């Protein structure tokens, strides 16, 4: 069953951008965007596109799950003989995305939401507090604790590699 959706909405372009941050390729970002679109239709219909906070949380959580389930690819498969090797920046981006996704998974839902909104969308603590219905003080606490946990987890992940 196919459903058309208002692709003119800015919300879906944002969903794709959030997804691309983590998936680091078009196909992964597209799959994630379709999944989020489907869930949004099931969840709240046409109006859900106005709830960017909800869309962002769903998108990031979906990408984290997808990266966790991703099967490791052998190095040989990444560089087929008839193509130029992938640029170094892409390889670093993919590895960094998986590591960051693994670290974000260790945060609470609220810590993750605050860190994502602050780091990637540059939202003020006041705006985050309003959208999440929390006090500004609580949002700042989530931010600091989230960063602290990420620092510890990323440090351990780097040691393990």
């Amino acid at each position, binding site marked *: 069953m196919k459903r058309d*959706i208002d*692709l003119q909405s800015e919300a879906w372009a944002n969903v*794709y951008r959030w997804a*691309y941050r983590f998936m680091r390729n*078009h196909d992964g970002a597209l799959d994630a965007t379709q999944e989020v679109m489907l869930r949004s239709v099931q969840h709240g219909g046409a109006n859900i596109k106005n709830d960017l906070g909800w869309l962002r949380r769903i998108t990031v959580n979906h990408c984290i799950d997808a990266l966790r389930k991703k099967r490791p690819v052998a190095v040989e498969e990444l560089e087929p003989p008839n193509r130029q090797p992938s640029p170094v920046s892409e390889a670093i981006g993919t590895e960094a995305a998986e590591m960051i996704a693994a670290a974000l998974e260790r945060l609470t839902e609220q810590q993750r939401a605050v860190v994502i909104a602050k*780091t*990637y969308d540059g939202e003020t603590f006041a705006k985050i507090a309003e959208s999440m219905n929390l006090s500004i003080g609580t949002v700042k606490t989530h931010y600091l604790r989230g960063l602290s946990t990420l620092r510890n987890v990323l440090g351990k992940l780097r040691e393990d590699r």
Partner: protein
Amino acid sequence: MNCNELAEVLADYLGDELSSVDRKAIQQHLSSCPTCAREVESLQETVTTLGQLDTISHADAAGQIRGLQIVQRRPVIQRFVLASLRIAAVLALGFVLGRASFESPTTSDVMPAGPSGDNRHAVAQASTGTIHPDWLVIAERINQNSSGLAGAFRHLAKDYKR
């Protein structure tokens, strides 16, 4: 500024929500407090690491999702069951129609019937016993009735009501 005062504004400092005056005061404290300096530096590195994940522009993203449609897939088990039911239904229908067409009477096998509801009984008498009388009635009605199959079913329905 002391360590406790720094802790109160640390989130604003890392989140870049402090005025330049306040930032200068913090930097002065950090230059003289190694403990706070280590803590703040490590958290800033974390923010920088997170920032490695850049993304494409809004315009590029809008172009990438053009033509997207949602395809709502049923679970695998559900799809398998539905497909099996469809196949079974087609096979059953084919079997029934096959038997009906194999056994359906030709025109000469059907007794000419009058306009009354006795047609059903009259035709049943001519039945070989292996054919359901309703099929014979339908065939007869089609032969007689200019409104074709629909009319045949309507008459059949009336016969049952009597």
